[in-house]
């Protein structure tokens, strides 16, 4: 038996030494070892080993593990923390400039990430504001659609009524459907999208009633309005009891306002503005044929699976109606997840939030945080090296390294707390209104009602405090006191880590500058780009077919009107895509139904063939104009005649139009066909007016409209406004990117400034001696620059490379086709960064230039 094998098992012994209270370790370990050797003789090696292990495990108990700390040490600790705080605050005050840089940088970044967080939060967490949101479900059913089992977010009315009548666990049932109505108050008209529901609505959902009673919708001739809508209708007047006239379908009726409720919060999927009694939808109709969204409120402790199971008996009821829609099963979707899952639920309520803006904002938030944190790490490290004597003294009188680290982290926490508070103020006072303005969202910074925001802020605080504080704390606590006092601790050093962080910051700054410049360029190009037709000087008026002719006659009397044309669906915001066929080839294309003058009036250039001819009757039913893309996709030759089959009618292609953009540039160009509708079907009138008279004519036309005596309100838009939404989005994106770039430049400039100034301060004696010996300012400047030139150059090259890729991707998704990123752009972004960097460094060079060398050398 070798020497080694007669010893107790090593791991058990080590385990014991690890867990055991050092004060007890000696006697305990001695005892178990003695026992081991005794057993070794008595019972043999194997048994002794096993018993030893067993003993060690049995000894693993609290009384042996706990470390005894005496009372005096505890009080001392508290005193120590008080001391840390005091020293931390004094230090902040003593080194004002770098502290300010740190705090401002961090708070800007925190402000940004708060906005990003709140936006993402409001997009992801939806419909949770209802008090009973855990009990509210959307009724769904599954059915086969062309062989596929699909889920639908609605139920037929009889099923909804049966659920309301007799199912255990079901508390209330709310039917909810939307429909367009037109409202008339005095001689003003409004088009609204109204919600039709029953009076349970206010009991189930948490919409706060401002005026009126929650049973407002019990009577069919009463309605409820949202506050903003009520203001729109009546101004500041008390709205309850007012009578308004509403046209539902073809019927017009008077309603009494019985309740006014507060608008739904921004993360609500239900955003009703006008609520009417459900009976108006079912009038003169077979309820079996009507589908409705059905919200089911369950009892507080109802078992959802049980309830769903009991609903399955209704499947046979539905299928017994002899309708085409047969259900496979009935289910429930929690109201909180219905928006998130809206892609799986056909015809449900709510929509899945778009990913792109969230990703962009998350990126910006984290970019800023990275920039600010790196600033902090760099500056804090350099700042701490100035306190090297303090560290030395602390260590000599017995401060442990862990205590020093705690001290630095505490100081760090103070600074970060300042920054978080300041960041919140910035976010609430400045970023939030700006962001709402740009993005058109309505975020509200209400820290007291937003629980998850608290958690986020706390997490952010701890995260930043730790991440930014860890390296400086570790770095400075490592110094050896002997070396510090002997004076040869190399505190300056090369500090490769600092350079790496600075490089990374500058790379991020380059990327964001590039993004900002590109967004400006792309936006400018986008807005000045030709639409492919003449969108200016055209007013489009919506009109019912009966009034089309009278309106046209009146409009033509206006001296500023040059020409008019009619359409059913022209170039506006809604599009009609249909399959079209030539021979065996089939494509989906856009069908525009207009009168004969429309294509020519819109100024879409003709490439070959002719426009529609007014004198030819055949053009009405059998001729179409197509665009270039149509010809290209079908591989047709311009010179020959072709026929196209749309909706089982054959049309002759009489002309080819030049391609134009029907919607945003990123949507590209689709095959398009213009066909002619007879004058009695037209629903909108496009009016071409003389240059510069457009708003004047629009007002005049509104007067003409009022004289016409139609039932509906005057609704018109300018052709050039049809894509305003898209341009506003692009401008918003541009502003966000510009803002990001500015912030990134400021942050990295501040970081650079801090580093350079600390660098200069550290070598101020060096520079003083050099000046005395006759070094020129140029010479000293060069020396300072040398340190940063390589970093700057490297960052610009790498940043440009990465930025080109990233920004390209972003612009692709935002603008569709865009200008390639040119050398000029790259140069411009590099120049901006260089200029900022040089400015920053030069402010410090001024300090050297104007300093009196004798003063810096006189100290001591």
């Amino acid at each position, binding site marked *: 038996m070798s020497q080694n094998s007669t010893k107790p098992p090593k791991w058990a012994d080590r385990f014991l030494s690890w867990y055991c209270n050092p004060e007890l370790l000696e006697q305990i370990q001695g005892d178990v*070892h003695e026992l081991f050797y005794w057993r070794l003789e008595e019972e043999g090696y194997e048994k002794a080993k096993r018993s030893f292990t067993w*003993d060690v495990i*049995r000894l693993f108990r609290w009384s042996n593990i706990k470390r005894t700390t005496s009372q005096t040490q505890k009080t001392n600790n508290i005193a120590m923390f008080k001391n840390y705080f005091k020293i931390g605050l004094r230090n902040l005050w003593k080194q004002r400039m770098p502290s300010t840089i740190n705090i401002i940088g961090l708070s800007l970044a925190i402000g940004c990430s708060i906005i990003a967080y709140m936006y993402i939060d409001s997009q992801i967490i939806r419909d949770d504001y209802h008090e009973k949101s855990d009990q509210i479900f959307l009724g769904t059913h599954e059915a086969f659609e062309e062989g596929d089992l699909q889920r639908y977010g609605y139920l037929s009315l009889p099923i909804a009524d049966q659920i309301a009548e007799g199912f255990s666990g079901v508390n209330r049932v709310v039917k909810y459907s939307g429909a367009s109505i037109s409202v008339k108050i005095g001689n003003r008209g409004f088009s609204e999208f109204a919600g039709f529901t029953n009076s349970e609505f206010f009991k189930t959902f948490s919409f706060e009633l401002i005026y009126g009673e929650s049973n407002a919708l019990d009577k069919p001739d009463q309605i409820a309005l949202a506050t903003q809508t009520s203001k729109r209708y009546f101004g500041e007047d008390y709205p309850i009891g007012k009578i308004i006239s509403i046209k539902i379908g073809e019927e017009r009726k008077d309603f009494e306002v019985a309740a006014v409720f507060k608008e739904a919060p921004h993360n609500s999927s239900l955003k009703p503005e006008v609520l009417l009694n459900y009976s108006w939808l079912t009038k003169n109709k077979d309820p079996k044929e009507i589908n409705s969204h059905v919200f089911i409120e369950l009892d507080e402790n109802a078992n959802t699976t049980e309830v769903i199971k009991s609903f399955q008996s209704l499947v046979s009821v539905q299928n017994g109606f002899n309708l085409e829609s047969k259900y496979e099963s009935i289910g429930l979707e929690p109201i909180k997840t219905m928006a998130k899952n809206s892609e799986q639920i056909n015809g449900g309520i709510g929509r899945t939030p778009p990913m792109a803006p969230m990703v962009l904002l998350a990126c910006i938030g984290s970019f800023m945080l990275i920039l600010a944190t790196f600033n902090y790490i760099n500056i804090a490290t350099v700042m701490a090296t100035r306190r090297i004597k303090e560290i030395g003294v602390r260590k000599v009188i017995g401060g442990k390294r862990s205590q020093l680290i705690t001290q630095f982290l505490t100081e760090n926490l103070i600074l970060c707390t300042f920054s978080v508070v300041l960041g919140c103020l910035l976010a609430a006072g400045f970023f939030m209104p700006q962001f709402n303005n740009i993005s058109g969202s309505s975020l509200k910074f209400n820290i007291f009602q937003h629980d998850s925001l608290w958690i986020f802020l706390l997490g952010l605080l701890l995260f930043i405090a730790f991440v930014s504080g860890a390296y400086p704390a570790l770095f400075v606590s490592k110094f050896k006191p002997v070396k510090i006092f002997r004076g040869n601790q190399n505190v300056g050093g090369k500090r490769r880590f600092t350079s790496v962080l600075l490089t990374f910051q500058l790379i991020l700054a380059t990327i964001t500058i590039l993004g900002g410049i590109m967004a400006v360029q792309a936006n400018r190009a986008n807005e000045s780009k030709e639409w492919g037709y003449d969108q200016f000087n055209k007013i489009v008026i919506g009109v019912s077919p009966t009034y089309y002719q009278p309106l046209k006659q009146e409009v033509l009397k206006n001296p500023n009107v040059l020409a008019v044309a009619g359409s059913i669906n022209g170039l506006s915001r809604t599009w009609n895509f249909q399959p079209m066929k030539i021979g065996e080839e089939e494509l989906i294309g856009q069908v525009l139904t207009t009168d004969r003058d429309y294509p020519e009036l819109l100024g879409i250039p003709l490439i070959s063939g002719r426009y529609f001819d007014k004198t030819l009757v055949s053009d009405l039913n059998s001729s179409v104009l197509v665009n270039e893309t149509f010809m290209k996709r079908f591989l047709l030759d311009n010179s020959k005649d072709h026929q196209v089959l749309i909706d089982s009618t054959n049309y002759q292609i009489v002309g080819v139009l030049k391609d134009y953009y029907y919607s945003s540039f990123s949507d590209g160009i689709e095959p398009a066909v213009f066909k002619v509708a007879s004058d009695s079907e037209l629903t909108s009138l496009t009016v071409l007016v003389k240059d510069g008279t457009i708003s004047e004519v629009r007002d005049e036309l509104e007067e003409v409209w009022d004289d016409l005596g139609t039932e509906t309100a005057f609704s018109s838009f300018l052709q050039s406004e049809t894509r305003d939404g898209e341009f506003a989005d692009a401008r918003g994106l541009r502003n966000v990117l510009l803002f990001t770039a500015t912030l990134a430049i400021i942050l990295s400039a501040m970081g650079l400034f801090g580093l350079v100034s600390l660098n200069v301060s550290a070598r101020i004696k060096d520079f003083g001696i050099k000046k005395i010996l006759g070094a020129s300012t140029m010479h000293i400047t060069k020396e300072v620059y040398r340190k940063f030139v390589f970093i700057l150059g490297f960052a610009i090259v790498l940043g440009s490379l990465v930025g080109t890729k990233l920004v390209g991707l972003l612009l692709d998704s935002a603008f569709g086709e865009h200008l390639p990123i040119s050398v000029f752009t790259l140069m411009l972004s590099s120049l901006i960064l260089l200029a900022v960097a040089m400015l920053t460094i030069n402010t410090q060079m001024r300090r050297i230039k104007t300093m009196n060398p004798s003063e810096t050398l006189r100290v001591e």
Partner: protein
Amino acid sequence: MKGSNIGELEELILLVVGVLYDGAYGVSVLKEIKDQTGREVNISAVHAVLNRLEEKGFLKSEMGGSSSTRGGRRKRNYYLTSTGRQTLDQVRSVRERLYSQLSPLGSYQFSS
């Protein structure tokens, strides 16, 4: 001071410490118990009881000498205090008083 009632194992170990007089520490107590009663007690239990008895004031302890089998580690020696001795006496007298009151052997019916 905690109550002066002691358990069975506590009493046993207190007695053994008294018996060993000068050389009572974890392992010797464990061995003595095994030799005298045949009972196998785990070392962790011995330590726990020794600590408890010391807390109650029945034992006092100090760090003693080392031996080679312990790898040069010192042991903690335990001594019986006067309170400990008193308690043992008390327990014994209670027990004897009760024992003397037992009826003579054989008068019990062991079967029903």
